[in-house]
């Protein structure tokens, strides 16, 4: 999906420091360009981590390096306060069905995503009020912060437009973002390499979503958009990488288990 060897233009014209260029000391200019680039890098990295699910075991070195990069960005965002702002905004905004809305350049939008973008615009109003800086409508920091716990913790990336899950989500996601101590944020990236490691607290949103399982969710297409490929799992949960489809024990929540078994059953029929 990433065109290898594509001739690329210098990604950063102008005076703003590029992500790959030298950066000054810790206090960085929080220009919107820099923030956007950093955001884009974060989204890109998260997608790369998720796309590690293949038939062959993913390259551990590559995964470690990408995860370290994500951790680094996260730490910087925490330091310059962007992180706290976003998590507060989430709490205030009664965070929606969490999703990863990566930069459009990297994602192939599915119809569901297009539908979801409608409600995204609604949230944005709240977010913009909470944040002082410009927020690009594309690289929605909301999504990334809500997503960040995901490979490390418990968040689905469903592009589902079911808003009735919002109330439950609002409990779940800010608590996820705030209560989870920093050390754990970077966690679960690595699950256990050999044996599948169950993910942490379930997301009630999952219940809603599973209640009307639509096989189209498990298209490779939607997986590639990074919307829903196993958000609860780290890149090393390899048993799940059998197929792009969600694996049986996605969450430890017992309430979800029966739904997941049903899901599994459906997947067997389909494949």
């Amino acid at each position, binding site marked *: 999906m*990433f*065109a*290898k*060897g*594509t*001739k*690329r*233009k*210098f*990604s*950063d014209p102008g005076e703003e420091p*590029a*992500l*790959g*260029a*030298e*950066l000054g*000391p810790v206090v960085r200019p929080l220009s919107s360009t820099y923030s956007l*680039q*950093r955001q884009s*890098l974060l989204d*890109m990295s998260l997608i*790369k981590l998720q796309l590690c699910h293949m*038939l*062959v*075991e993913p*390259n*551990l*070195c*590559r995964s*470690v*390096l990408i*995860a*370290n*990069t994500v951790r*680094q*960005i996260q730490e910087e965002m925490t330091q310059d306060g962007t992180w706290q702002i976003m998590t507060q905004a989430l709490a205030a905004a009664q965070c929606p069905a969490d999703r990863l809305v990566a930069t459009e350049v990297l994602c192939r939008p599915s119809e569901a995503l297009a539908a979801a973008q409608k409600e995204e615009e609604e949230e944005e109003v709240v977010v913009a009020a909470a944040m002082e800086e410009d927020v690009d409508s594309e690289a929605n920091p909301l999504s990334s912060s809500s997503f960040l716990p995901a490979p490390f913790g418990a968040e689905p990336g469903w592009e589902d437009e079911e808003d009735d899950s919002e109330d439950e989500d609002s409990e779940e996601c800010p608590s996820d973002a705030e209560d989870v101590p920093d050390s754990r944020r*970077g*966690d*679960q*990236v*690595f*699950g*256990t*390499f*050999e044996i599948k490691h169950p993910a942490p607290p379930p997301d009630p949103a999952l219940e809603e979503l599973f209640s009307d399982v639509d096989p189209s969710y498990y298209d490779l297409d939607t997986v590639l958009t990074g919307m829903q490929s196993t958000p609860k799992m*780290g890149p*090393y949960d*390899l*048993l799940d*990488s*059998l197929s792009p489809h969600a694996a049986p024990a996605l969450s430890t929540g017992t309430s979800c288990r029966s739904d997941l078994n049903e899901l599994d059953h459906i997947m067997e029929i389909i494949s």
Partner: protein
Amino acid sequence: MAGVAGGNDFQWCFSQVKGAIDEDVAEADIISTVEFNYSGELLATGDKGGRVVIFQHEQESKNRPHLRGEYNVYSTFQSHEPEFDYLKSLEIEEKINKIRWLPQQNAAHFLLSTNDKTIKLWKISERDKRAEGYNLKDEDGRLLDPFRITSLRVPVLLPMDLMVEASPRRIFANAHTYHINSISVNSDHETYLSADDLRINLWHLEITDRSFNIVDIKPANMEELTEVITAAECHPHQCNVFVYSSSKGTIRLCDMRAAALCDRHSKFFEEPEDPSSRSFFSEIISSISDVKFSHSGRYMMTRDYLSVKVWDLNMENRPVETYQVHEYLRSKLCSLYENDCIFDKFECCWNGSDSAIMTGSYNNFFRMFDRNTRRDITLEASRESSKPRATLKPRKVSTGGKRKKDEISVDSLDFNKKILHTAWHPKDNVIAVAATNNLYIFQDKIN
């Protein structure tokens, strides 16, 4: 133009190219490792399809003594097959990650080849005679009754067409949970080490059902994993010493006499980071993709994404020499991260006298650095410059501003054409360069 090595002006010229010319390259044909044996007589390549091809150096012809002999196919065999790990439901690739030759002790040749999980010891032997004249069978080929044989006839050895046989003598399996990235034969010629992302094992060449774990950096909680082993090598003379490099740009030298488990290093090599050049990609580009001891054993060389560094084993705090391979890529790191090229693992190698080093780059370019004269040269492995004995023209990448004639701009580089594997003949100025599915052999033109 300036040549490399020896201080004499000599030039590299094309000798041979092996492999198909098609534009459509089959994945299985992509060369994944190249290695000369100790004498340089044999040159082995491994590919993604699990095959090993060995070339042998033919003697110079008397008609053209100024030309070194050519390398021709000596043996081809399937070393590894794809496998399926049923426990994890994952495929195990048959790609040959590394080949290492054993020093020759008799008429046969031995090499170790490895994929992600299994190492195999192969014996390559010649058969050019067969025994004829047995009187043990009748005309129909049935064994005669011993009582019917009344005379003793000694069979005679008659020449036959040369046959080169490769047979697997040892299979060292089930010792690595993670992907093997390195194997290295010890100077005692009895043991060798194999390294994966988190562990290093020591084997005896004769024993396949046991190996000793000598390094283990796996954390108790995998979620705390931030560093992996990227390469390892035995010291060329001291059989108790080995080094391993990490994804954080560090090298650890270990002494096996100190402890059974060498988790504590004897020496720790790391160059302090330049704070002014720190970026989100700093760690990734500092990850070491290859480490090689010099033939003398006094130095070692490491390759990271943008540079090659030579270290004196007696000085841990910084390298003694640093060579920029393709510094013009530093401003493109974001794009290279996006297309995954930033994770490419380039190898590096010394020449026989340790006076020069070589490594690959993109666009089928490869670079050589003369350590004495400090001169460097960029050459290209391409079909265009593949006329017999044609001298290679030095290439240059223009780094902005006006692009001179014959220069190529950074944006025009083909990042799909990467030279990851190169090898230098242990004695002569002959080099082997793997460009995707083609193997180029270059040699110096003796003036």
